[in-house]
């Protein structure tokens, strides 16, 4: 690949940008927007985390101590919604904004004004959602899955606000996805053919297609909920010829691809970090690309594995069981490839690598429990228990969230021009790693022993583990404040200056621009050989 760092110096003097808040409100710069997304995601992560603390405080002991059941349900619901739509998805979009143009040698995203919009409607959406908690009767309390008729006939009037805010989140995601696709299709540097594209770009491209395919389905689902509740339709009401299970089919037709939306970019990130710190090329690049694509395709035919207990016909249960088992094959391929990349490498353990290694092990544990959940007859026992809560937190927290943290450590020096504080990083990693397992591992046990999810109080045999789970929860929550301190420090430009290359084993165009990356990069496209 060519070196463009020299040409970049003259770019720096036309960094014109308005001062103060207007810079951020009006910005069309992919780096600014990426930063906005990342900060927004982090704030939402803390807000959603605070709600998790409420949940865990109530579950610390049997009995009701702190909150009413109705408020408890609002906490689980809004925690889930915020973590999924407010933390994980915007964080990945932020990373895409920052890194995709840098990785493909483009000067910016293809549609910069739309980029500004897709970010700036998000805070509004979440303000509406959070404000609904303060209405009389409270906010949404039907779970982030908002099953009808609990969310229609039996919900309170904050449902209208819930629907509105989900619509806005959906529009934002679709705009972000269009932008990623157009950018990748049209703005790759000369010579960057499809099969030379960095893995993060590949996984995001596939994710963007998933988003465009399923966000409208979610929009349809919330709209039907809205009309069922307020305009007398009965899509989901048997009394009017509808079917409540239809809701679940529609929701999970969105919902299953959605979980891959939250993990494919993570696969991309890990596929950069592992080779960098193993000082060896990614093993099986092309099989990684094919595995990602096949996961994406298969993700459209497994949705009903969330619905085994709804009473589907035997044939459907079998089909969805087999399809779900099948999807674990390409996922396995990914894990094997990462291990093979490390094999006979020259491994060092900087912080991004530590998080990536934790990701590989803990995400795989989440994958194992996923495989167990695929076995329909056994899923009847696991379904809607804490076993499921354990499963999806392993894939979402130690999966998606850990990959985001790995990415932040990996690219922070490029963004800020300073190395992160090593001591804080060590503290953050080890506290998070230990507490996250104390938090989520025993959930497997209580789940298997029969504790249902979404309950504010539980039978006495679950008391011991729940105490430990809560302690793990508080510790994990506190650990993230270390991360906050670390990021603030780096963004205030305190720390050792970083080189352009940052990591000796790193490859890719993003390492050819100086650190911190100038406001405008690749105004003349680099040549990829």
């Amino acid at each position, binding site marked *: 690949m060519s070196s463009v760092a020299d040409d970049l110096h003259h770019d720096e003097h036309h960094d014109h940008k308005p001062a103060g808040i207007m810079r951020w409100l009006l910005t069309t710069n992919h780096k600014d927007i990426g930063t906005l997304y990342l900060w927004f995601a982090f704030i939402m992560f803390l807000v959603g985390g605070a709600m998790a603390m409420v949940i865990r405080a109530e579950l610390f002991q049997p009995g009701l101590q702190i909150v009413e059941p109705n408020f408890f349900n609002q906490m689980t619901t809004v925690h889930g919604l915020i973590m999924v739509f407010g933390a994980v998805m915007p964080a990945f979009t932020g990373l895409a904004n920052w890194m995709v143009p840098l990785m493909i040698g483009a000067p910016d995203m293809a549609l910069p004004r739309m980029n500004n919009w897709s970010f700036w409607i998000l805070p509004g959406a979440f303000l509406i959602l959070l404000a609904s908690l303060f209405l009389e009767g409270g906010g949404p309390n039907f779970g982030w899955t908002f099953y009808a008729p609990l969310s229609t006939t039996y919900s309170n009037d904050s449902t209208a606000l819930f629907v509105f805010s989900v619509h806005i989140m959906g529009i934002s995601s679709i705009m972000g996805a269009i932008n990623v696709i157009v950018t990748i299709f049209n703005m790759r540097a000369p010579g960057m053919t499809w099969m030379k594209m960095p893995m993060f770009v590949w996984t995001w491209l596939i994710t963007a297609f998933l988003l465009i395919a399923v966000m409208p389905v979610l929009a349809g689902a919330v709209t039907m909920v809205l009309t069922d509740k307020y305009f007398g339709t009965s899509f989901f009401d048997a*009394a009017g010829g509808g079917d409540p299970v239809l809701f679940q089919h529609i929701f999970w037709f969105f919902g299953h691809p959605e979980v891959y939306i939250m993990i494919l970019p993570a696969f991309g990130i890990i596929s950069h970090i592992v080779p960098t710190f193993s000082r060896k090329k990614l093993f099986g690049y092309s099989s990684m690309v094919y595995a990602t694509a096949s996961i994406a395709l298969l993700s459209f035919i497994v949705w009903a594995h969330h619905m085994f207990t709804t009473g589907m016909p035997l044939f459907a249960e079998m089909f969805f069981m087999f399809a779900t088992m099948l999807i674990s094959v390409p996922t396995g391929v990914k894990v094997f490839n990462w291990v093979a990349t490390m094999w006979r490498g020259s*491994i060092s353990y900087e912080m991004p690598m530590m998080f990536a290694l934790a990701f590989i092990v803990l995400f795989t544990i989440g994958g*194992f429990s996923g495989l167990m959940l695929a076995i*329909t*007859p056994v899923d*009847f026992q696991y379904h809607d228990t804490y076993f499921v809560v354990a499963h999806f937190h392993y894939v979402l927290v130690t999966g998606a969230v850990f990959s985001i943290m790995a990415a932040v450590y990996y690219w922070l020096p490029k963004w800020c021009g300073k190395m992160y504080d090593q001591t804080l990083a060590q503290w953050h990693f080890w506290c998070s790693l230990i507490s996250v397992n104390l938090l989520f591992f025993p959930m497997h046990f209580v789940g*298997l022993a029969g504790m249902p999810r979404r309950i504010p109080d*539980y039978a*006495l045999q679950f008391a011991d583990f729940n105490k430990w789970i809560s302690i793990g929860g508080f510790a994990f929550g506190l650990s993230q404040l270390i991360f906050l301190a670390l990021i603030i420090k780096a963004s205030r430009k305190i720390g050792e200056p970083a080189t352009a290359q940052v990591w000796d084993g790193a490859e890719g165009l993003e390492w050819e621009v100086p650190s911190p990356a100038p406001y405008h990069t690749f105004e003349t496209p680099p040549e990829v050989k």
Partner: protein
Amino acid sequence: MGKGVLTAICATLASSVAVAERSDINLRQGVTDISEQVYGLHMTIFYICVVIGVVVFGAMLYAMIFHRKSKGAKPANFHESVKVEVAWTIVPFLILVGMAIPAAKTLIAMEDTSEADVTVLVTGSQWKWHYKYMDHDVDFYSLMATQPEQIANKFDKGENYLLEVDRPLVIPTGQKVRFLITSDDVIHSWWVPDFAVKKDANPGFINEAWTKVNEPGIYRGQCAELCGKDHGFMPVVVIAKEPAEYQRWLAEEEAKQLKAKEEEQKLLAMNMEMDELMDVGKQVYQSACAACHMPNGEGLPGVFPALKGSDIAINDMQKHIDIVVNGVSGTSMQAFGKQLSLKELAAVITYERNAWGNNTGETVQAKDVNALITGN
């Protein structure tokens, strides 16, 4: 030395088997052939995962230790191998096929609800279960029996805290019992872990499940689908009795329910005293109404209306009786006409009209309620 290692390995194995059988951290084997098969599948897939995990994490750990830069490892050059990649696609695939076959067999058996000896209609509603024996005149509601004071941490919690009901479902052992499962309002899910039965109760549709219990005993479960505020407080308790004992219980229950209906008719001619109505009414209110309208009658603003000071509870008596008997369709206010006896209805309405400062001084009698039900 070698012997020591061997004993250590044996001890670990033995303890891991012991751990696997602990029902506080693992699935229980349950008391039906199906639940044992399910447990078997669970352990098989679990061990498969453990083996794959040991291999993958083992290889990873090896690389992490021996291919370290600080040990002077030089990176190798390879970055693909069609053979290896095909192998690790095919091998997991074959393992999964091996797993899918027994799973499918068990699934087929679980879904075969034909030729049942006993059929029970199970209906969920916010937040209780209703059981109806299809071939007998026996049906009843089953509500959680844990005292609110235990939940509020005022009393000590009992052994079966949150897992006890006033009237458990009774089924025979050794016979195939079919459950028809449905709901009156939102989706609930009827779950008894020891039977490996969990099936959603969908409003307007009927699901089927079955069990054949081998051991007499008391089996406890819970609602497993978020169904609103008190989702955590709608347990399932099933007592499995020897067939002869079950028959005796059923006959007694049938007689009891018949007698209750006759008594009800007698009641129409009598007037009950205010004190008695208030006593009964308070009990009924606590068990049937307080979950929504709250023990102090103040409801939950924006969700469940207050009855304290409500116009209906103070003034319009006919409307009051009507709402309690017929419910308000399209809301979670259920029709209690089918759920409570005339006496209980009269009592609870009287209670609502006189408690919490609603001092109307009026009593409502069984005949008033009956008049509204029969329309005269």
